[in-house]
């Protein structure tokens, strides 16, 4: 191969189904920066939510014999075929924000259960330990599902009642969440005082519905810590808190693991690295 002669330039393929998602895009951009620092040639391929194509993308990547493949946030149970072809070609696969699976050398992630738990605990705190809430969810996404399950446990334990769990449609989650919450404000006016968003976009939609309806006694919590969420929280409105995923740390850790592996084929131990989330509740 041409790049082995230079010795320094390694090619890394990043494959993701979710580049349209701001958080995924953020961590991949950060990883690209980390790669550049190390002199790698990082290419990104997105399949826009299509897992059949994601498997194809693995095959296409394997054909180009990169030094390593990075899976950017995607359910590995649906890409066993792609993982197999990488394994067969001896190319290591590192995952960011995915899950451990056969064929994945290491997975560096925010602990989604931890994100769910922390955000729910913040919600409970905001509600003073009692009340009822609405959850905005998206079970087809495994990360969001894990958060939802962990959050539910917290709410159950705290005796917070979940009066509705709304599935938010993607694309268009802000608008969809906004409409759903608007309807809930009609059908269940005054029956809930908190809205938990499985990620920041539905939380934003919920916030807008509350503002438009002049409802001030309902608190919103999101997860992810995206820029717009931070900005919204800083305004001091209903959007009270989010759990920031530490994308910089995740990207850096992934790059470190890859570098170590490329240097002397060192398989990371443990294979599952979880970086904790950080609560954000506005400028102090």
């Amino acid at each position, binding site marked *: 191969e041409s790049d082995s002669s230079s010795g320094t330039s390694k090619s890394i393929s990043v494959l993701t189904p979710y*580049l*349209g998602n*701001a958080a995924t*895009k*953020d961590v991949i951009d950060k990883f690209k920066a980390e790669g550049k620092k190390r002199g790698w040639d990082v290419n990104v391929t997105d399949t826009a939510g299509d897992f059949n194509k994601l498997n194809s993308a693995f095959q296409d990547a394997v054909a180009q014999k990169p030094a390593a493949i990075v899976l950017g946030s995607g359910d590995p149970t649906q890409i066993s075929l792609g993982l197999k072809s990488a394994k067969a070609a001896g190319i290591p696969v590192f995952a960011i924000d995915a899950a451990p699976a056969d064929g994945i050398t290491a997975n560096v992630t925010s602990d989604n259960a931890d994100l769910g738990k922390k955000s729910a605990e913040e919600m409970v705190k905001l509600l003073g330990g009692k009340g009822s809430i609405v959850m905005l969810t998206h079970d087809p996404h495994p990360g969001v599902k894990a958060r939802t399950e962990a959050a539910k446990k917290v709410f159950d334990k705290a005796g917070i009642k979940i009066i*509705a769990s*709304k*599935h938010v*449609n993607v*694309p*268009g989650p*802000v*608008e*969809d969440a*906004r*409409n*759903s919450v*608007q*309807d*809930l404000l*009609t*059908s269940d006016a005054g029956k809930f005082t908190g809205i938990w968003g499985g990620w920041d*976009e539905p939380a*934003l*939609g919920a916030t*807008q519905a509350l*503002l*438009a309806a002049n409802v001030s006694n309902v608190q919103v919590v999101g997860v992810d810590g*995206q*820029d*717009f969420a931070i*900005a*919204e929280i800083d305004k001091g409105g209903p959007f009270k808190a989010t759990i920031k995923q530490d994308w910089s740390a995740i990207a850096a850790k992934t790059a470190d693991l890859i570098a170590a592996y490329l240097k002397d084929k060192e398989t990371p131990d443990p294979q599952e690295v979880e970086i904790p989330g950080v609560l954000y509740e506005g400028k102090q």
Partner: protein
Amino acid sequence: MTPTSMETVTEAPEGAPPSTYAMRRSAALARLRASGTLIGFAALIVVFGILRPELFLKTGNFFNILEQVAVLAIVASLQTVVMIVGDFDLSVGTLASLVGVVTATLLHGGMPVIPAILIGLAVGVAAGVLNGFLVAYVGLSAFIATLATMTAFGGLALLIANGTTIFGLPESFVAIGQDKLGPIAIPVIIAVVVAALVWFITTKTTAGRRWYALGGNAEAARLSGVRVRRSRLYAFVLCAVGASVAGIVLSARLASAHPSAGDPMMLTSIAAVFLGMTMVRTGQANLLGTLVGIGILGVLQNGLNMLHVNDYVQQVLTGAIIVVAVAMSRIGKSRT
């Protein structure tokens, strides 16, 4: 001489056709059929009204529904124009996203509201000219041409927004999407104005006649001296402008622009027009029908939400109810 059809009954009294009664009865039946979809719509309202009268029938909820469908109604109104011509435009969704992103980016960069909106609209006009050119002048099928531009516009939106949400838009802009005039949200007012304009243009002007002629039989239209290609181009341009207005209003409403915020409107806008097409005898797209279609979709979602139907079940029910609502328009109709 020999008046043959139902409507003549009143118009040619001297001819005394043999079966006046049968004709009148079947005219009534035809009108009933034509309004089948409307009955379906009414039935929906009645059912939800009975199940949750205290919520569903409140004025506040009525305005909520209007607000929820406003942006979609803008897109669907102008999708109607393209569908009158016999085509459809799959690119409206991503175009709305693109224009939203472009406008938001400019605003974010500090441009005043009016020029930013104008540039956004200009992007829409350019997109519409591209679509219209490909379909009317190059001769591509509308499906493949607008599918291609849909893909391209979506890519552009992602590129410009760098894949992420643009937020922090000026208050004066956000007002377009969030302020109210009395109980009525500005997007609703915009939608009403747009729909009224489209109604006027399609039913009262020569441009509208030409579009209907074109959609009914392009060859015959050409023969009557209609400039078929130009007329079709205009339809696509108007449709794109509608999508752009919707994209701008949507990003004002959400106080942010997301590169795929408008995408879901593609299928729903076409669905609304199709629902409305069942309401007229000729089966052609028409603005009033489209509005009923929008109404059905909006009421359905709101009503099911009021009933706390599980979201997945809600999806199944939506499909089933649409079928039933449309099937009403086919009562007693013989084979096609």
